């Protein structure tokens, strides 16, 4: 499920003409970047290595100081505060996480509240909240980081970043160091977290698929911090602003778009469905009308199965014909990409779509490819 941010007039983070040239180098790592992040949205900075995405992220919490330009968070310039105070108000998650090995998980999470001087009761309550929020087993709290797995440590890292309830969260390749299965779970976790918390998140990744999945808006950066395109994933996939962007999206850009479209948004076909009491004539008619040589049988929102036309003809009807179940069924909330997968791998070249078990209609490859072409 994707979170769609309503475009509000409130910009949470505003980068204006920000540049960074490192000492001893000639070409700037980031050149005159201007970017605005709305309250509650997730913006993903993505691009090839050397594009300055991590540098840009680190300038927001002043781990790197810009050579020129200004950065404003919630109306206050980042240089108005001492850097360490600024950072206590921003959550920060890095790829290797950097949990403190000499402290228990509990104390790790309590780091920023400790720095801010929260009193013990409040900290304890907050940790319980976070444990529930990020799905941490309470008996993990008194262990040490070396005893945890990579996926667990990642979630602790997120909990730690959220401990003091900062409005802004910065994440630098947070899911890069784990295997794909764990990564997918962590991404899901982040999405559901965002649904509940509505934090302003800036996330850096080199993985365009991750960007499309997680971002409300995606900023595609080229080497030197040049902003090539900054828009919603759907828009970028629909019309890349330059050959660089098209290239970066990959040649399967059209298919990537499908992952953003839920089946809900498409008009489904009724499909060749007849009631169980239909006779051979009616069956032939329906098959001819739909242009297929197989028939599905069902009634009142229930699908019992399908059978090839040949079986019906040789039996002279449905009586005694064994119905085959649909191999893949889709839910109305699935994306067209999953639908494409199902359709391509099924015998019937269609996929049946359901909502809470109730049959709604069918999707054929034609309907799907119409979406790509659009």
């Amino acid at each position: 499920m994707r979170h769609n941010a309503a475009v509000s007039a409130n910009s949470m983070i505003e980068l204006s003409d920000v540049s960074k040239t490192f000492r001893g180098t000639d070409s700037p790592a980031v050149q005159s970047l201007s970017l605005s992040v709305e309250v509650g949205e997730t913006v993903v900075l993505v691009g090839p290595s050397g594009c300055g995405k991590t540098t840009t992220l680190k300038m927001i919490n002043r781990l790197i100081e810009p050579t020129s330009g200004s950065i404003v968070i919630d109306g206050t310039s980042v240089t108005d505060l001492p850097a360490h105070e600024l950072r206590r108000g921003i959550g920060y998650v890095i790829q290797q996480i950097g949990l403190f090995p000499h402290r228990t998980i509990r104390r790790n999470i309590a780091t920023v509240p400790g720095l801010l001087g929260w009193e013990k009761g409040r900290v304890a309550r907050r940790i319980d909240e976070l444990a529930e929020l990020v799905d941490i087993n309470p008996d993990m709290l008194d262990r040490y980081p070396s005893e945890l797995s990579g996926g667990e440590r990642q979630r602790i890292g997120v909990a730690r970043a959220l401990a003091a309830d900062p409005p802004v969260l910065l994440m630098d390749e947070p899911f890069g160091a784990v295997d794909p299965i764990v990564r997918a779970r962590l991404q899901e976790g982040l999405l559901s977290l965002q649904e509940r918390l509505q934090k302003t998140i800036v996330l850096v990744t080199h993985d365009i698929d991750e960007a499309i999945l997680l971002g409300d808006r995606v900023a595609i950066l080229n080497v030197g911090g040049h902003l090539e395109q900054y828009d919603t994933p759907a828009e970028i996939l629909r019309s890349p602003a330059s050959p660089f962007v098209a290239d970066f999206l990959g040649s399967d850009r059209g298919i990537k778009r499908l992952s953003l479209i839920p089946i809900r948004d498409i008009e489904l076909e009724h499909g060749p469905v007849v009631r169980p009491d239909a006779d051979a004539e009616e069956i032939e008619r329906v098959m001819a009308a739909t242009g297929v040589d197989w028939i599905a049988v069902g009634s009142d929102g229930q699908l019992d199965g399908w059978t090839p036309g040949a079986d019906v003809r040789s039996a002279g009807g449905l009586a005694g014909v064994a119905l085959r179940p649909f191999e893949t069924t889709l839910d109305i909330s699935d994306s067209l990409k999953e639908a494409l997968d199902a359709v391509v791998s099924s015998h019937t070249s269609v996929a049946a779509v359901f909502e809470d078990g109730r049959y709604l209609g069918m999707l054929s490859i034609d309907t799907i490819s119409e979406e790509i072409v659009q």
Partner: protein
Amino acid sequence: MNNADAIWDRTLEHVYLTALAVGIGLVISLVLSVIALKWRPTYQPITWVTGILYTIPSLALFAFLVPVTGLSVLTAEIGLVSYTLLILIRNIVTGIDAVPVDVLESAAGMGYTQGRRFWDIELPIAVPVIITGIRIATVTVIGLVTVTSLIGLGGLGFFILRGLQNFSSPIGTTQIFIGTILSVVLAVAADVSLAGIERWLTPWANRGAAE
């Protein structure tokens, strides 16, 4: 004075001289290490000077100090402290250096000031390496304290020197052995205790990994 009392007194003297030297050495080394870590170019000269102090034979060092500070605890301590510096500084710096970069970065990113980060994060994590240095320094100093017998102290080395002076009589051999064995026992006891302290201070260092 009966022998057991003498042995006990000398043991106390030995422990006192050692503890004082390692204690002072640790404080000085911490200060110099912080300087070396903050201003990298100073590490080389610091290592160089402490290295020379370490290389100079203890007897020679005492030879330099006696004209200045006489046959006193001060002379002994200046000499002993000098020996601990190289080992301790090297271990402190190496230990702090070994703190993983991601830990440093996440600490900075969460809003730790550099100073607080040093005391709360870097130093505690470096404790195992630092205590290893303290162990080496302590055992070394325990050995060197015996040489201070030549300037009137010596701890258990007193018996070793006495034994040498009485070498022609059987009691000499006994004295040498007593001095030696007790010194070794003291050194081993110190080493084991410090190892135990290390384990007590770092419950996190010995936990197994989940993956």
